[in-house]
């Protein structure tokens, strides 16, 4: 069939490069987004008034501002002010800022759900505040936040497609180019959709695996059974 030949001969090879860019974007953004989320959450809960306020504003802004708009700001808005980013760098920066804001909310909720007694005991043993937060609170909070944070990571994979809008030729962008050249939009985007579904499914499985591995008895409700 015509479509299948197209898919095999022209589409898939062209999408290979795009997929690798997408994967690169994702792998760069996830760890930094997570780090940002943890820092902002900790700052909001344990910081002094100023730091806490800054973190609140950060979350307010980067949750309320659409990711696409943020990407435009970084890629088109900053150069006139003297700061230029490559499409990939701009994309990663945008993803990190945005993901960081959403993740921090989950982590913050998890931190606040850890029992007060935990840090009391830590202090009684002579740990500093920082040690208590680092070794006792965060390990517990992170595990509890994992379902929510994992969700945000899935979003990240999907929203990576927006990088195309600032000229980063990732999967979606590569697809559009090929589709336009051969005028086969439906097949192209169905295939692209399938690729994203595969990526998302892999990520979901990995996250479920992580949740299982990190589970400790008595942790509380989880998104898997037993």
């Amino acid at each position, binding site marked *: 069939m015509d479509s299948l030949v197209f898919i095999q001969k022209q589409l898939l090879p062209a999408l290979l490069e795009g997929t690798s860019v997408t994967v690169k974007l994702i792998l760069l953004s996830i760890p930094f987004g997570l780090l940002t989320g943890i820092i902002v959450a900790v700052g909001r809960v344990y910081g002094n008034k100023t730091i806490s306020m800054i973190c609140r504003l950060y979350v307010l802004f980067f949750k*309320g501002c659409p990711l696409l*708009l943020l990407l435009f700001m970084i890629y088109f808005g900053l150069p006139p002010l003297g700061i230029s980013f490559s499409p990939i760098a701009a994309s990663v920066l945008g993803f990190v800022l945005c993901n960081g804001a959403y993740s921090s909310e989950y982590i913050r909720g998890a931190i606040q759900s850890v029992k007060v007694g935990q840090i009391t005991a830590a202090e009684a043993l002579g740990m500093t505040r920082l040690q208590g937060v680092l070794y006792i609170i965060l390990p517990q909070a992170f595990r509890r936040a994992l379902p929510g944070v994992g969700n945000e990571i899935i979003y990240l994979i999907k929203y990576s497609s927006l990088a195309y809008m600032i000229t980063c030729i990732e999967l979606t962008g590569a697809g559009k180019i090929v589709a336009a050249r051969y005028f086969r*939009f439906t097949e192209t985007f169905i295939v692209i959709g399938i690729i*994203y579904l595969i990526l998302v499914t892999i990520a979901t499985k990995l996250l479920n695996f992580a949740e299982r591995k990190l589970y400790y008895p008595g942790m509380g409700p989880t998104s898997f059974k037993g």
Partner: protein
Amino acid sequence: MQAVIESFPYIISGMGVTLGLVGLALALGLMVGIPMAVGQVYGGKWTGKFIAFYVWIFRGLPNLVLLFLFYFGIFPLMGLNVSAFFIGALALGLRSAAYQTEIFRGAILSLGEGQMLAARSLGMSKNQAILNIMLPQALRIALPGWSNEYPILLTDSSVCYAIGVMEIMTRGNQMVTRTYQPMPIYFACALIFILMNYGGLSLFRAVEKRVHVPGFGSSDQS
């Protein structure tokens, strides 16, 4: 700077389009989501599987891909000449339906089977029980999670820029090309979105308060 300020009215008038997208998408999501949730909980095995498949697809696909698929692919293929606005609303709505299905399903399941048992023991049919007992409660429980769809759809509506819908982002970009001042204009757009976000949230909080039944569920899920 003058030019920037003069472009504001044009950009702000995009709010109507944005809200239109969000409203239609929420409505579509609701109309499709509730039946699907009910179908998953009370329907047969194959109904459940089919719905789960739908949810899996529409939660796994990026908005942009959906938009391109519909706008450049499916609709032209079927020879339908539909405006970008409605295609955008459709794509957003179908996606939202998938998430709303999960929200309502979770709410229905959280009621436990006691409610249904009691209703049936009083002689209600399955459908009567669902309509009169389960849904009224489930919808209240679902409200906090459901109102979360609003900010999500609000920020997602900006992606409709990619197919030329004249919402806030598209208009903003047009003004940028005219005034050559990207940052101020983008910043203004961001503020508009943030304010719309905040306004909507307050509205939903108020609604939550009004429909709250004492001692019911945990509406402190902020």
